[in-house]
């Protein structure tokens, strides 16, 4: 691994599900990087492909899903890598790790994962301590007693009171928040370089969520582990992430540092997501849910996939498909996939006729007038 290579590099990753209704392009050409010690967010509505992207990194996509293209490099190893064969077909490259190597060298040991539902992620018929100990034994080559000690220490570290006494308790004797702490302990105890957290606080109530986020921030600072944080909640992104990827229908449509994303939003979808965050100064009735439902990834809309819901959509958005590009090069590059950035995409957005989506629902009037020409 060369010095300037990021810890994890995902390039043009494609994962598809082959169903009876058709091919679902769940992840459709996603690229992003994770640097050492960084928390990178993947945010989007459910169905945007963010969890599939996360599980693709560990090659844990389940049937009928399959990684069909792209590259995932981690610490100089090729977790996913395709090349064009002599007959033009994509095939796996030789240096791509075998399944056995993924299991023995990567999963748990180098990249650990925390799942969404703490109630379902622990096996109900084994003790919490036993499960933790098993993963430590496998991934750190420790003997039973050392692993047990390690497990107890880690339970204490994540704030489980009296870990020695709770060691032999079963999962159902823990609350949801405590179980999520156990799962965090599992991930950290394996001493991985990267932890993928797949909506780990979604199933928890707000107070507990806050505690868990604080805990992760503290532990992240202490262990300097990198994180990929998958969530649909911009509030969580704001609290915990350094950089963010916004996903819509299998694509990353905006990529930026958190503060840039929040204060210099480049994509209307991100804007809509930000509008849907509950704020203390708004009651629930005043929330701005995003208009419309996300279309199916089997038959994504033509052109810009967001155009059926986008308040700024114009004729050109139906025809031209914007890939995300650097739209603001100051500091860390800010990437966006919206034709309104005419200087980057040059598709003739401002000369195209509006589709009139804004009349379908109440959209933020400010944004609409803003889109009316000030950027030109």
């Amino acid at each position, binding site marked *: 691994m060369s010095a300037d290579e990021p810890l994890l590099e995902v390039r043009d990753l494609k994962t598809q599900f082959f169903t009876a209704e058709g091919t679902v392009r769940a992840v459709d050409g996603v690229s992003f990087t994770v640097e050492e010690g960084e928390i990178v967010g993947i945010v989007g509505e459910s169905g945007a492909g963010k969890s599939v992207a996360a599980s693709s990194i560990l090659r844990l996509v389940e049937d009928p899903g399959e990684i069909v293209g792209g590259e995932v490099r981690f610490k100089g190893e090729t977790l996913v890598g395709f090349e064009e064969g002599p007959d033009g077909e994509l095939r796996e490259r030789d240096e791509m790790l075998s399944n056995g190597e993924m*299991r*023995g060298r990567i999963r748990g040991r180098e990249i*650990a994962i925390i*799942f969404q*539902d703490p109630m379902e992620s*622990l096996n*109900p018929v084994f003790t919490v301590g036993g499960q933790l100990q098993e993963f430590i034994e496998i991934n750190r080559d420790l003997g039973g007693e050392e692993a047990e000690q390690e497990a107890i220490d880690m339970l204490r570290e994540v704030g489980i009171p009296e870990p020695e006494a709770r060691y032999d308790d*079963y999962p159902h004797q823990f609350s949801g928040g405590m179980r999520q702490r156990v799962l965090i302990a599992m991930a950290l105890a394996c001493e991985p370089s990267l932890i993928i957290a797949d909506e780990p606080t979604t199933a928890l109530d707000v107070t507990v969520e806050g505690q868990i986020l604080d805990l992760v921030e503290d532990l992240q600072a202490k262990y300097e582990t990198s994180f990929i944080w998958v969530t649909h909640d911009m509030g969580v992104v704001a609290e915990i992430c350094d950089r963010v990827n916004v996903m819509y229908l299998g694509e990353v449509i905006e990529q930026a540092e958190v503060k840039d994303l929040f204060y210099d939003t480049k994509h209307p979808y991100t804007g809509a997501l930000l509008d849907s965050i509950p704020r203390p100064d708004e009651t629930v009735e005043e929330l701005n849910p995003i208009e419309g439902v996300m279309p199916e990834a089997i038959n994504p809309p033509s052109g810009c996939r967001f155009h059926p819901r986008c308040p700024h959509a114009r004729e050109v958005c139906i025809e031209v498909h914007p890939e995300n590009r650097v739209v603001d090069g100051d500091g860390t590059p800010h990437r966006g996939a919206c034709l309104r950035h005419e200087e980057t995409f040059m598709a003739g957005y401002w000369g195209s006729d509006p589709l009139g989506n804004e009349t379908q629902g109440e959209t933020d009037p400010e944004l609409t007038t803003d889109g009316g020409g000030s950027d030109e």
Partner: protein
Amino acid sequence: MLSYTVRRVLQAIPVMLGIVTITFLLTDAIPGDPVSIMLGPSPSAEQAAAIRAKYGLDQPLYVRYVNYLADVVQGDLGRSLYFGEPVTQKIMERLPVTLLLLVSSFTFALATAIPLGVISAKRRNQPTDHVSRVVALMGVSTPSFWIGLLLIIAFSFHLNLLPATDLIMPWADPASVEGASTRWDVLVTAGEHLIMPTITLGTLQMAAVTRIERSAMLEVLNEEYVKLARAYGVGESTILRKHAFRNAQLPVITVVGLQLTQALGGAVLTETVFSINGMGRLIIRAINNQDYELVMGTTIFFGLTFVIGVILTDLSYAYIDPRVTYGERE
């Protein structure tokens, strides 16, 4: 766990009481007069009265019920009218035969069904899975007596390999077993006699357990905790053996428990097909002879077996799943 066990056993008492009561009332409602069966078609009035008095049949229903209940509680199930022996003695004579049959057919069923179900789930939708599913489907839809008859025709009449009737107890005295001089001979003979009845009775269980084992394993293999184990580098065989297997046995136990009680019915048929003198044939003979004490006794005994089966199911459940007994401890 101990307090749970005690509680489950105590809960069984009213159930048993109910079984005894219903059995008593139903038996009383059976048409036909046991006295006429004992004495032939036209007994003299005095003879009939004497018999009625001897067996307490001249007393009103509730008195007979209370007396019977008192006897049952003391372990006395009355006397068989036909055999003239105590019902309990008759049961104890026949019980080992039926137990041997049940144990052997369940061992056969579980020993084949569990691996078959697990392999089927592991190789889902592959040839192994298809074959095992077809076999299981045939197994659950074929009547056991028919399997028994086919086996007899093939292996006894045509091939002359296996005996078609009777069971030999493996612990029988060599002297009492035809053609046997050593313990080993007895064991071999007992085994030969046991093979066909075991398959006859066990096929249904095997098929039912295979199906539930497969579907339970498939379900558990989809659980988040299995995915988590996979994500932490646990190998597939460990996942099957450890992470998935134990959980998957919960529905299997329920089915095995149900099968156990169904197998009592199956034993009646199997014993009839193979002329085995077990509990099944005893109960049929009792019914044919209107031997009402024996009918009641065997029915109550079957009821008891059923209740024990349910308790064992619950206890195994509690043993496997810690959530079941949770809340018991202070």
